[in-house]
């Protein structure tokens, strides 16, 4: 019985192939859009995550301020990390780093890299993981040891593949340093810094021998709880102003970025993008639904006489309703399947040509397909209901 009705619905749709295809087209585009939208949304989400994966939301970054009209150089120093740790509230750890550009060479290769002088806490706070070797220790800092840990991009630039950088000597700003460790790829930036193409050295070594005053200080502090970020920011500001002996008329010679609000802002823009695209997809599906409704009304009016005959020979309202409803569901389900297929094919193509970041998302296909079924039911119901309620005698009289 059910199978027969499905077959009848198929036959009647097949009888008008062009019209059936055109009314499906709306659903196809709608569902493909939904899938593409969710892939793009997921892509945006992924890039936000990648950007901040090394930055916990509890992080606060303090950098020197060289704002407009600010002539004197900032007094921010790696030692300020200790000040922040001791005098600010809600801070559980702080690490200072000094960063600058320097020429780095190994063998015949000579390149410019970021050189970062760090204290022993830096690796932990910045979430850095070693691929091999060891990190910078307190002893290295005390001894102003001539040692370096290098990022993954720097390794592949400087060394031939397969060769082990550990215990080799590289030349940084004219000084020989021993490579004691290699970092795992990070893929993202920490504040203004790309760790993958950086050479990490003890802070004392950087300040004394490598960068000197050219170095730019960056302090990373951890708040005990994200909720206290704002209180901690205020407290760091006053601690540093005191430490730097700034008068009331002087502006801060440092600026504070908190990871929480950076992540939140990026997250929000990713969410806004998704919401916008979802709205477009929803509108596309709505329009496709109206298209289906329109076509269903045409089909119903074409078959008015058949409806009259069906009623005269004992067809119930439910039979007629289900017949037409089924046709609109078939329209939208097939449209949905084709749309899903197109969407799934489009994602690798988009990602191959790198037009926009896309990520795989199960939500897109699931949502797209279930919406297409809903569109079929929702927009098919009214025409089908009208058909089922036709007066049999009036319907029989129509031509």
């Amino acid at each position, binding site marked *: 019985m059910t199978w027969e009705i499905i077959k009848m619905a198929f*036959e009647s749709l097949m009888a008008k192939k062009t019209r059936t295809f055109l009314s499906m087209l709306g659903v196809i585009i709608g569902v493909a859009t939904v899938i593409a939208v969710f892939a793009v949304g997921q892509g945006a989400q992924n890039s936000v995550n990648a950007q901040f994966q090394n930055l916990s939301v509890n992080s606060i970054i303090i950098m020197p301020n060289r704002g407009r009209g600010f002539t004197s150089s900032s007094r921010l120093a790696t030692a300020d990390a200790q000040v922040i740790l001791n005098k600010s509230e809600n801070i559980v750890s702080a690490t200072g780093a000094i960063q600058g550009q320097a020429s780095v060479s190994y063998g015949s290769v000579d390149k410019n890299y970021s050189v970062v002088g760090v204290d022993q806490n830096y690796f932990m706070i910045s979430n850095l993981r070693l691929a091999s070797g060891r990190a910078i220790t307190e002893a290295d800092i005390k001894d102003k040891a001539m040692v370096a840990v290098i990022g993954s991009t720097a390794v592949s630039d400087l060394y031939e593949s397969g060769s082990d950088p550990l215990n080799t000597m590289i030349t940084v700003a004219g000084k020989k340093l021993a490579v004691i460790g290699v970092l795992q790829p990070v893929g993202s930036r920490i504040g203004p810094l790309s760790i993958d193409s950086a050479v990490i050295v003890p802070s004392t070594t950087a300040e004394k021998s490598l960068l000197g005053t050219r170095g730019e200080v960056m302090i990373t502090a951890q708040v005990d709880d994200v909720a206290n970020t704002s209180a901690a920011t205020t407290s760091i500001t006053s601690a540093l102003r005191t430490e730097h002996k700034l008068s009331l008329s002087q502006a801060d010679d440092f600026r504070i970025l908190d990871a929480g609000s950076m992540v939140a802002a990026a997250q929000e823009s990713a969410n806004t993008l998704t919401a916008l695209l979802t709205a477009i997809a929803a509108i596309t599906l709505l329009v496709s639904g109206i298209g289906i409704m329109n076509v269903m009304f045409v089909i119903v009016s074409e078959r008015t006489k058949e409806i009259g005959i*069906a009623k*005269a*020979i*004992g*067809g*119930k*309202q439910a039979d007629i309703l289900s017949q037409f409803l089924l046709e609109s569901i078939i329209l939208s389900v097939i449209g949905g399947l084709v749309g899903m297929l197109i969407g799934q094919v489009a994602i690798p193509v988009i990602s191959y040509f790198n037009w926009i970041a896309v990520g795989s998302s199960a939500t897109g296909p699931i949502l797209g397909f279930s919406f297409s079924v809903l569109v079929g039911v929702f927009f098919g119901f009214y025409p089908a209901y009208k058909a089922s309620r036709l007066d049999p005698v009036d319907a*029989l009289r129509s031509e």
Partner: protein
Amino acid sequence: MVSQEHRKNVIAIKLEDARKSYYLSNDEEIPVLNGVDLSIRSGEFVAIMGESGGGKTTLLNIIGCLHPLTAGQYFLDGEDIGAVQDDFTLAFIRNKKMGFVFQQFNLFMRFSALKNVALPALYAGVPTTVREEKAKALLESVGLGDRLLHRPTELSGGQQQRVAICRALINDPEIILADEPTGALDSKSGLEVMEIFTKFKQQGRTVVMVTHTAEVAKYADRIIYLRDGRVLDHDYKLHSHY
């Protein structure tokens, strides 16, 4: 098959003061039936005659449960169904108790003869193989065994009407309702159709047939003559003149 002996003299259809009006969009009432009283016995073959516009088809549609009455009563097998509005019940009656034969055949052009005949059984929930067997047997019985998969457009008028008759019979109804069944046919095909109708009587079915042709009406046991929405004669003789 309905047992004729068992049901003889039982009133199958009875109308009392049956009224039907149509309403125009300005609420103007157009009365079509103005108090029809009639009763038709089970197994009787009745022809309904009358001038055009006299309410013949409306009367048939009321008997066939396609129209509700505006006022009055309609007893089917002794049960008053004039006021029944429930679609399920009405569809059930149209499906199981009655078979409709139309002047213009009213077949589904998209379907084969077999499918057309089997459709009421589909609505009745009969399994596919059973109803297609039955449809095939019926079509064979009217000489269309070699036309099972033909569509209506590939059949002559007489053949189409025979398909339509098979469709009316598929659920083995007690009552056959026919609206000018030979109206669109040549005289030879019309004759073939009327021969099938005479068999209905032998099978014990009640037949109500609207016609304006004396030639056709003479096959009936009795002729009910309508004029201006009323029964003028319950047993009209073809030689009578009004």
